[in-house]
């Protein structure tokens, strides 16, 4: 374990320039000023829907699994109330 730590330290500068740099990815709903997930906010929900009306997977949007569950619930509620279509994306 100790060896690994040293290696990380050495290559810090190299990593910044490399194209394979691991950028920190953030969940867009877990930050301080992030918006609250709400089934009435169709503008926000439409950002996480594909052209065919499917919910985009969290591996693409980087949403944490906790928030992804709430987002999916909100989208399904909005669909039931016909605020969002089941089969295609609504455009604003």
């Amino acid at each position, binding site marked *: 374990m100790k060896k690994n730590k040293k290696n990380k330290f050495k290559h810090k500068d190299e990593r910044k320039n490399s194209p394979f740099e691991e950028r920190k990815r953030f969940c867009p709903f877990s930050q301080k000023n992030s918006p609250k997930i*709400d*089934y*009435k*906010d*169709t*503008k*926000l929900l439409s950002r996480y829907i594909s052209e065919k009306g499917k919910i985009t997977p969290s591996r693409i949007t980087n949403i944490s699994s906790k928030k992804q569950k709430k987002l999916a619930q909100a989208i399904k*509620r909005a669909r*039931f*109330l*016909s*605020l*969002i*279509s*089941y*089969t295609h994306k*609504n455009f*604003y």
Partner: protein
Amino acid sequence: MNKFETVILLTPDISTTIVDKEEEFFLNSILKNEGKIINQEDWGLRDLSYNIKNYKKAFYKFYQIEINGSKIQDIKKNLSQNEKIMRHLFVRVETHQELPTKMIKNEEK
């Protein structure tokens, strides 16, 4: 007593006086079951994103209520038997949002 948000969709082919009557029907059923109505909002006649019972539009009504959760089942039964109410949704919330909701804010922009 818990806090709930409810949304109701009414058929578009009825006059405004009947809309008010149906609204009263819903509000009375809550009051009968010892509930409270804290806020309400009228989203008006909106386009549906898919047809429901061959209707393309509907009146949207939004309420913030406080009621005992076990009594909602009876209210749901009443609502589903009413032909003029197309859809209804009850959602339990921790705290009530401030009005106006984002529904109306987004439309203004």
